[in-house]
């Protein structure tokens, strides 16, 4: 594991070069479950099937079967949905996940060039919809009681207007359980120079850049600390999460965190996150809150539900 961590840090160093081509914006960067987002989006320690969007090795935490759904709407316009299911087989755990971001009624515009128009104003001549989807098929196995491995095959689909983009890639992940802490190491989009390729004339392919995430879970009595360093789009991002399970009400888990994330222009932003998870008979209901910058609607709410049985 130590060797893996050293290799991870080495990869971070050699990849710290500026991006020239346009990167494909991964919609999963938003977060795959309210439980994860509430903890500063520290990845790998989600106990439902949606962990395949973070670190496929984390599926070892699910029992025989698991499912998870997350839904949120960003700035009242972008509908994010994630669905994941997993099941245990004699050869390991298998899982499937679907993550979607959709926007409707985007105007297609034209200019009024008629002789009557003195202003040559723009007008809406029609509308189109937008859909960005990621499909993941996952396999997880455990090498020992302490070392777990998982791999994902990811398909990317990007459809809007008259354009259709497609790409594919692989993810790898490891989780190591130590008596003091659990370590999670994941590498997303590991294929070198993989791209999302578009079918519209003059369109440039977008790069699927690798993301490397190293995170830990350190339990101290009823408080759990989750530090994380992530290398995304060749920029280091730090996160820390906290969770507290009150001994007098073990069904409840209070979440808090700090997360750094990137905008589409690859500028670093940081936020605090808060959340709540209620676990009743294996059904996990989670809520997370995060402030965003959008004008006058600067509150973002996430809801997810999942079950492991």
């Amino acid at each position, binding site marked *: 594991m130590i060797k893996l961590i050293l290799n991870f840090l080495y990869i971070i160093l050699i990849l710290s070069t500026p991006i020239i081509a*346009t990167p*494909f914006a991964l919609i999963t960067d938003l977060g795959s479950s309210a439980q994860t987002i509430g903890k500063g989006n520290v990845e790998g320690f989600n106990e439902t099937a949606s962990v395949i969007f973070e670190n496929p090795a984390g599926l070892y935490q699910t029992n025989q079967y698991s499912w998870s759904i997350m839904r949120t709407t960003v700035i009242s*316009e972008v509908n994010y949905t994630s669905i994941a299911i997993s099941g245990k087989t004699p050869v390991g755990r298998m899982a499937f996940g679907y993550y979607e971001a959709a926007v409707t009624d985007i105007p297609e*515009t*034209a200019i009024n060039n008629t002789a009557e128009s003195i202003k040559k104003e723009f007008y809406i001549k029609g509308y189109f919809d937008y859909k960005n989807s990621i499909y993941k098929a996952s396999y997880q196995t455990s090498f020992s009681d302490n070392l777990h491995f998982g791999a994902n095959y990811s398909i990317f689909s990007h459809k*809007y207007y008259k354009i259709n*983009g497609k790409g594919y890639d692989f993810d790898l992940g490891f989780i190591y359980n130590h008596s003091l802490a659990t370590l999670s190491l994941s590498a997303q989009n590991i294929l070198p120079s993989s791209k999302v390729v578009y079918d*519209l004339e003059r369109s440039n392919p977008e790069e699927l850049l690798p993301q490397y995430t190293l995170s830990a879970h350190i339990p101290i009595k009823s408080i759990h600390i989750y530090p994380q360093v992530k290398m995304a789009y060749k920029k280091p991002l730090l996160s820390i999460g906290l969770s507290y399970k009150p001994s007098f009400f073990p069904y409840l888990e209070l979440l808090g965190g700090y997360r750094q994330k990137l905008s589409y222009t690859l500028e670093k932003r940081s936020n605090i996150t808060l959340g709540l998870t209620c676990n009743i008979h294996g059904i996990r209901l989670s809520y997370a809150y995060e402030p*965003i910058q959008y004008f006058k609607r600067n509150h973002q709410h996430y809801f997810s539900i999942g079950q492991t049985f």
Partner: protein
Amino acid sequence: MKKKKNYFIFQILLITILSVLTTPLFSQSLTLNSHNYFVQVSDFAPMNNQKPLNAIFIRYKTQVVDGVIRENNQIKDLNNTEFGITNPPLFYPSPFRLEDGAEFGYGHVGVADLEWRIYDMRGNEIFKMDLPHTKYFHPYVKIKFDKTLLGHNNLPAGVYFYVLIKENDLVGKGKFAVLP
């Protein structure tokens, strides 16, 4: 009688010659306001004018000069009109490629200092610009939007959202798509 008739013809000829010779003195030069947007020109002898003239705004019976509209002998100062959006803010073309650029346009009456903000699909603000308006009236504002204005060479393909804000109030919003 014949002498009187000749005198009349002479008078007509004299007036015609004087009119032709003196019209350049009465014709106004090209008048531009500070935005270089409105042009008012009265040229009684366009044949004599050597300057090229591109008509960008023509209106009959109505003149708009520096925020004052004159129509049917009624004078209205548009600078004192309450601000309002007359044409919704739109990008043209949409969708577009960042390397090709686009134009952002909206129509309004009245005067206000506006703020223009653009957000990505995660709700992050990626662009902010003040749109200060002087005392002059614009019927339709167009702003070139490209890599230079954005300050970034790359913008991932997707949908982006924009708002126009006046004194902390939302006066316009919309969305546009960027092609890869």
